[in-house]
């Protein structure tokens, strides 16, 4: 204890010096920016490929995830274009069908569409949303927020990255071989019987999901241990930023749930290759068993997808509103509570295929999950009260998140309610609901988080005005694309349809227009990011006035994160009592002079 205190005192002195010494004072090479190139191009690339630095791994994940997001997004646009019109036969000629087969059969055209929506779903779920925030932002930030030099097992971290790469490559190979048409849920017996002509690609795609699962498990394990072992001196459990709590809860789910899907997918591969008869009724199996296995994993994974988003939003709202989070402990426990209950609700995906008793139990449990989630939203809104809100791109996004996620959450209610779900299940209402949660929630907060930590990650500011323009386009496009789909759903449009009855045409067209506005929004962001990397003004250490530890180190951080092990003396949200370190309020906000400032 006294030793710890002594050490802490020593650090205290140093860090005071540090405040004024600012950028890269250190003499030896470890003190340079982690981004600084190592020798020539080849050796720099080799250094990145074999790096055990959590920051570089985080940046590589970010690049990979964004690339795959682009791929999945192109598939989504293709889907929207196909759905612009229903397929009709006019004088023996097919019209309104974009994907046509050389043979000219309508069904063969639909088969192409089925591959494309599967591709969209599989990429977005397994390669973008699940690994996105934890692997990219989590890797980069978790150790820094804890005041550590790296994660607990840096080599394991490198292994996770390469496992992720292998999994993604397998998936992409399967797509290049022609893709699969099983849907990302791989429901049996469809998935065990489709595409026998070139059956390896279904096995490949399932194999990809299996391998990606391992990457998740390894990363999760690493994060759990890191949080337990590597907190900086003075940081108790309840001094951790909520982003860390969120990543921690996520990691627990990943470690516990992912093995189940691993085994399930393995069984599925066996079923296809050796006809063991577990899921395929033709040989005595039970297809609903697959659904149980699948959702036992995939529902908790819905929270793997959303909890990190909650973490980001908690950081963003507090920092940009300069206000202590309302109900910190409730927030932390809500994360853990959601993680726990999420293991008990898998059956709500199967109301239309289970008995009464099981459905009742799952419906009740599902409503339980709604509570901690609602509490979080209440807390975020309450945090705004008497804050000092600056409308930066991350904050604008955080407010959009509140709007979209609230809709996403509330539309979950009629899906958890048994009688209404029997109408809405497997309809466009579900499609709209999970896009509001997964995209309006997770992707939006991911993009928000990228903006918030961009200056930290790359040491450059981005153009605030254009980023906000992009955010607004995304918001408008998103609502146009998906709100229409709620109505399509209640009116009777089933999901995964390549064509539809003429009554639905108008709403589908609005939805397609929306998707292109969405595209435009993301292109603006892409432009803003590239512009920032090329010509952005150097970022100060603490542009927004944050209190968590990442804002105490350089932008971008040095290779070992901190010049000296930090000592935690204030909570991450004590804005009322602490002046944020290294912070010049004049850094921000400067929207009008932003362009001028960049010319320096």
């Amino acid at each position, binding site marked *: 204890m006294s030793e710890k205190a002594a050490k802490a005192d020593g650090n205290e002195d140093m860090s005071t010096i540090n405040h004024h010494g600012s950028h890269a004072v250190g003499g030896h090479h470890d003190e340079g920016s982690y981004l600084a190139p190592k020798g020539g191009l080849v050796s720099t690339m080799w250094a990145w490929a074999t790096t055990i630095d959590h920051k570089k791994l985080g940046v590589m994940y970010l690049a990979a995830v964004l690339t795959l997001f682009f791929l999945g997004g192109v598939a989504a646009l293709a889907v929207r274009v196909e759905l612009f019109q229903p397929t009709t036969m006019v004088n023996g000629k097919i019209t309104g069908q974009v994907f046509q087969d050389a043979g000219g059969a309508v069904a063969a055209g639909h088969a192409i569409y089925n591959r494309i929506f599967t591709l969209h779903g599989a990429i977005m779920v397994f390669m973008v949303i699940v690994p996105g925030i934890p692997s990219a932002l989590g890797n980069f930030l978790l150790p820094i927020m804890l005041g550590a030099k790296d994660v607990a097992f840096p080599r394991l971290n490198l292994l996770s990255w390469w496992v992720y790469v292998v999994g993604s490559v397998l998936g992409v190979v399967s797509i290049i071989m022609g893709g699969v048409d099983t849907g990302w849920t791989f429901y049996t017996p469809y998935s065990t019987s489709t595409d026998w002509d070139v059956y390896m690609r279904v096995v490949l795609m399932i194999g990809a999901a299996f391998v990606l699962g391992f990457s998740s498990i390894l990363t999760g394990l690493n994060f759990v241990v890191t949080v337990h072992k590597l907190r900086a001196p003075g940081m108790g459990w309840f001094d951790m930023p909520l982003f860390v709590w969120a990543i921690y809860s996520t990691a627990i789910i990943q470690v516990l749930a992912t093995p189940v899907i691993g085994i399930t997918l393995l069984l599925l591969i066996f079923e296809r290759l050796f006809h063991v008869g577990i899921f395929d009724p033709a040989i005595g199996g039970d297809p609903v068993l697959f659904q149980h296995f699948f959702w036992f994993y995939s529902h908790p994974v819905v929270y793997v997808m959303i909890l990190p988003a909650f973490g980001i939003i908690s950081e963003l709202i507090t920092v940009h509103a300069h206000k202590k989070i309302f109900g910190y402990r409730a927030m932390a426990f809500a994360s853990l509570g959601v993680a726990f209950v999420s293991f008990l609700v898998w059956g709500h995906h199967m109301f239309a295929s289970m008995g009464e008793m099981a459905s009742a139990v799952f419906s009740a449990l599902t409503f339980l999950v709604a509570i901690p989630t609602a509490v979080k939203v209440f807390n975020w809104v309450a945090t705004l009260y008497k804050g000092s809100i600056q409308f930066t791109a991350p904050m604008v996004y955080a*407010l959009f998140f509140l709007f979209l996620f609230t809709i996403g959450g509330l*539309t979950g209610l009629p899906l958890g309610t048994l009688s209404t779900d029997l109408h809405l299940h497997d309809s466009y209402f579900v499609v709209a609901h999970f896009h509001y949660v997964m995209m309006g929630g997770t992707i939006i907060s991911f993009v928000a988080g990228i903006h918030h930590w961009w200056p930290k990650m790359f040491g450059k500011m981005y153009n605030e005005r254009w980023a906000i323009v992009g955010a607004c386009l995304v918001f408008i496009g998103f609502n146009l694309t998906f709100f229409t789909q709620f109505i399509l759903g209640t009116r009777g449009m089933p999901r995964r349809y390549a064509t539809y009855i003429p009554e639905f045409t108008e709403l589908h067209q609005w939805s397609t227009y929306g998707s292109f506005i969405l595209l435009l929004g993301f292109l603006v962001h892409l432009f803003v990011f590239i512009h920032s990397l090329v010509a952005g003004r150097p970022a100060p250490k603490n542009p927004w006035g944050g209190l968590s530890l990442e804002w105490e180190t350089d932008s971008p951080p040095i290779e070992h994160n901190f010049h000296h092990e930090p000592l935690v003396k204030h909570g991450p949200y004590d804005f009322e009592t602490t002046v944020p370190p290294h912070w010049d309020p004049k850094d921000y906000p400067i929207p009008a002079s932003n362009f001028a400032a960049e010319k320096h």
Partner: protein
Amino acid sequence: MMTSLFEHGLLSATLAEGNALRDFIFGTGGTGHHAEMVEETFAWIFWISAFFFVVLMGLTVLWSVQYKRRATPVALVSSSHNTVLETLWTVIPLGILAVMFFKGFQGYLDLSVAPAGAIEMDVRAAKWDWRIIYPNGAESTEREKLGSAKEIPIFYMPAETPVKLRMVSNDVLHSFWVPDFRGKFDVMPNRYTYYGFTSGPIKGEKKLEAGPFAGTPYQDHWLFCAEYCGDSHSEMAAVVRMVPRETWAKIVDSWSGAGLTPVEKGKRLYTIQCASCHSIDGSKNTGPSWKDAFGKTETFTDGTSGVVDDAYVRESIYEPAKKLVAGYGPQMASFKGILSEDDVAAIIEYMKTISVNHKPAEGQK
């Protein structure tokens, strides 16, 4: 206060009883007791959600404007924790959700427990056709074309009558959804599932135009497959046509296939069960066309070849995966236990009539 409003049905009435918002959300086709119940529960959830949404977003916008950063940021001192408030906003939603759960469970039982005295019918699903087998064993012979030219059946249903469907699939999972009934249930290959409902009255002015039952009032509803099932999933549809109960009984009687010749019977079986994959005009579909198929020499995926004769057709129907025609996948499920030997023979007779490759034996000329 809110709950008492709901109890008096004031707010829910605005959505459930024929008004613009209800029509906007669901369309105007809803029919039957169950649909009313679902719409009512949905309305209840809708207004609660709207209330929370407006309060939350209202506060967000209000405070965003009120506390916009103006000069150097100093957050005003305010409590960041309030036990009473936090308990309230946990317990109140919990109460609301409990009520929501019970309402939902009631409606669910209403759908899965068949009404008393129901007429029982069998639903058979197979890629990508629906069949309904009426109590007298008959099946609908009336068909209609979707925009894409795929033929779908028209199922006649008695209006204002309790009905119980016993459903099973011949291949993968499907799901029986008539959106206007506001309910669906999965159809599985390994067990029966049931779907019970009491059909509603006939709305609208439509009357059958031709045929022996011309002048009968009717109302059409869509039947869709809601569980993804492959290539033509989006066209696995049918029309559910409500007609008065007495007329329904007469129509169904008129379909009982007695007195058909084998060729007629074969053609009917083809239309109901095979047409979604096999054309008779030579165009390639999920399966090979039957035009000029009988008697021709077919090449298989394993490189061998053989003549399409009686034995081969029978084998193709009962064990379709045994020999695969080159260029096609194993999409066809076995019809063993579904088509009898007589049915197969009838199909063979029908195939002969549409093939130039079929050379009738000497004596038959």
